[in-house]
């Protein structure tokens, strides 16, 4: 439904769509280590560089730890730097991730969401990004290749905004999105590059007249204030995300809200789910609607920062909510469930809410299973424990 005629609709995998976005963004530096199912992103982008389609300096490091170190340092030097990873790769980056955000460097990284070892498993779940959700990175989840493509542009603008200056990761479900082919609307190169523009760093390592020290030691007297500023930047990101989304709408004609509310307005029962399963859930909602049930879908896109107030507002009239998490938070409530439950705490009335875990290690989830979740909500089958979908007991 684009208002812009300068676009083409072509069949692409999610990985191809992300690489295409990166080509249009024109980062100065890309460093990424191959890992299934992220690999095609770095392969395709490397081919772009090899064919002279981008002027980006592509580095092929010996590990994800070096990949994130390279893009972090390149960003400190003033370059626009991007990476991509998944699962164990993201886990190997963990030491550096809070340094990237703590140094306030706008690195953007695509994550082809994949289960964490052990047992080793190459398929989709969200345990990789959930494990790093408290490290100061903005996190945006995508439902499909189109969203992954669009989110890359949002992420660059949001990260580089002077009131934000925080790194971002854009999640796309491993294999399901990264390798699945969809029709993706790709917008004009110039239009998209102009949307992100050139990075304009306020400080760089190349200022020899006023040399700066980046990454000093801060002890008991300053560390706390620095971290407080990071939290303020996250709060700013919440506001600026919507502003940048409105700008992007002018090109694409689409909306970029914090979350998608699908048939939620008059719904009595809703499921909350992120990523590709939201697509299946929409079909389940449609079928149940035809059967006369007032059901809807709540699909968070921006997960960090989490828009608590807006979430509460969107869900306040429901009679029951099921939250589907594609990750455990071992020994605690599941991540998305925790945040939504927290958001609802300020309501006067208590909405019944049920936690579901699904799809770990790429376990398929089917429409009938989602419909079954709705029926449990409608029938008032709530427990304090999380329930598992598609698990062999």
């Amino acid at each position, binding site marked *: 439904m684009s208002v812009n005629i300068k676009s083409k609709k072509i069949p692409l995998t999610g990985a191809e769509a992300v690489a295409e976005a990166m080509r249009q963004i024109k980062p*100065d530096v890309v460093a990424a280590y191959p890992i299934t199912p992220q690999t095609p992103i770095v392969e395709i982008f490397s081919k772009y560089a090899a064919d002279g389609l981008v002027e980006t*300096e592509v580095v092929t*490091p010996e590990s994800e730890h070096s990949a994130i170190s390279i893009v*972090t*340092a390149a960003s400190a030097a003033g370059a626009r730097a991007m990476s991509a990873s998944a699962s164990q790769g993201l886990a190997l980056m963990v030491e550096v991730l809070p340094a990237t955000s703590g140094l306030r460097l706008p690195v953007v990284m695509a994550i082809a969401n994949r289960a964490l070892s052990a047992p080793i498993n190459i398929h989709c779940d969200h345990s990789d990004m959930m494990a790093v959700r408290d490290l100061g990175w903005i996190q945006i989840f995508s439902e499909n290749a189109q969203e992954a493509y669009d989110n890359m542009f949002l992420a660059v603008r949001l990260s580089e905004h002077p009131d934000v200056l925080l790194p971002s990761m854009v999640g796309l479900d491993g294999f399901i999105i990264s390798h699945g082919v969809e029709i993706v609307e790709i917008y004009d190169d110039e239009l998209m590059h102009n949307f992100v523009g050139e990075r304009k760093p306020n400080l760089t390592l190349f200022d020899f007249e006023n040399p700066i020290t*980046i990454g000093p030691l801060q002890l008991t007297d300053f560390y706390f204030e620095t971290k407080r500023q990071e939290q303020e930047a996250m709060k700013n990101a919440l506001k600026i995300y919507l502003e940048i989304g409105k700008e992007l709408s002018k090109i694409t004609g689409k909306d970029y809200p914090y979350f998608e509310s699908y048939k939620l307005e008059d719904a009595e029962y809703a499921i909350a789910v992120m990523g590709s399963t939201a697509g299946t859930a929409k079909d389940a909602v449609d079928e149940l609607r035809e059967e006369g049930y007032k059901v809807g879908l709540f699909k968070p896109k921006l997960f960090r920062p989490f828009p608590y107030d807006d979430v509460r507002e969107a869900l306040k009239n429901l009679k029951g909510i099921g939250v589907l998490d594609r990750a455990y938070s071992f020994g605690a409530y599941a991540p998305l469930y925790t945040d939504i439950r927290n958001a609802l705490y300020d309501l006067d009335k208590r909405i019944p809410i049920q936690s579901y875990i699904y799809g770990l290690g790429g376990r398929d989830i089917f429409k009938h299973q989602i419909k079954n979740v709705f029926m449990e909500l409608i029938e008032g089958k709530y427990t304090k424990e999380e329930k598992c979908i598609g698990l062999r007991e």
Partner: protein
Amino acid sequence: MEIKTVRDLAELQTKEGLRFVAGHRMCAGCGISTILRTVLSASKKPVIVVNATGCLEVVSTIYPYTAWNTPWLHVTFVNAASSASGVETAYRALKKRGVIKEEVNIVAIGGDGGTYDIGIQALSGALERWHNFLYICYNNEGYMNTGHQRSGATPFGASTTTQPAGKISIGKVQWRKDLVKIVAGHNIPYVAQSNVYNTMDMFKKAQKAFETLGPKFLNILMPCTTNWGFSENLTMRISRLATETNYWPLFEIENGVLTVNYKPKERKPIEEFLKLQGRFKHLFTPENRHVIEEMQKRIDEDFDNLLKLEKATHELGIRI
């Protein structure tokens, strides 16, 4: 001006100004600032320094103060070499786009912990990718910033807090890692070993490194007054003894050709180096006499091997 003597170097530093200045909080008797001032003044171009976590980072950048008069970046302990790779790559990208005009030198600095051990993978990757940068290891043979724990650079027979000498222990039982050989295995154009007492040796090697394109590596020994256990006024004396005993030979490998820069007419016995240091105190007992003997034997063998390599590369056309 051509720098021939330490006096010339002092004049150069006075004229050009220092890239590392006063105000840091190093221990009295620490050699790091001597290394930095010497090595960094050998660069005719502006310098960007990337620093691993360690003594240097901790003492020179206690916020809101900094002793760095040149752009400086610290990310983590592990990644001085990969962060320097990132800066160097950004430099190439921004130069290509015309954002940066001037020529620069990029220097990564880490202690032996950040270089021999936790950072060796990042170092190896950066060398293999052929980034144009100089890596300097200031080697004080252990994790000194955190109170003298054992590292891969800690010498045989030294007592450290994690491998202490005791009733049934001589301290470290393994020989130290030969990092220069490992680095040379990447076939980079310039690898050298130097020692903090020898200012001109450090300076000349840094000059050569800065004039060479591609990855370069300097391994500089730096006695640690606090943890090697000697009084502050002995740093340079102990440093010199390390070379005079052949414990720490000065040599360089240029495009695979090895040159030993200093050959003592008569090498001093290793005891002279050991006896001034608390970390070797336990070796001076009759029951540990064999440790010193073993050490002496290995040092002589290693130095002999170094001379053979020099001969082989200079005279037989063999390349390291």
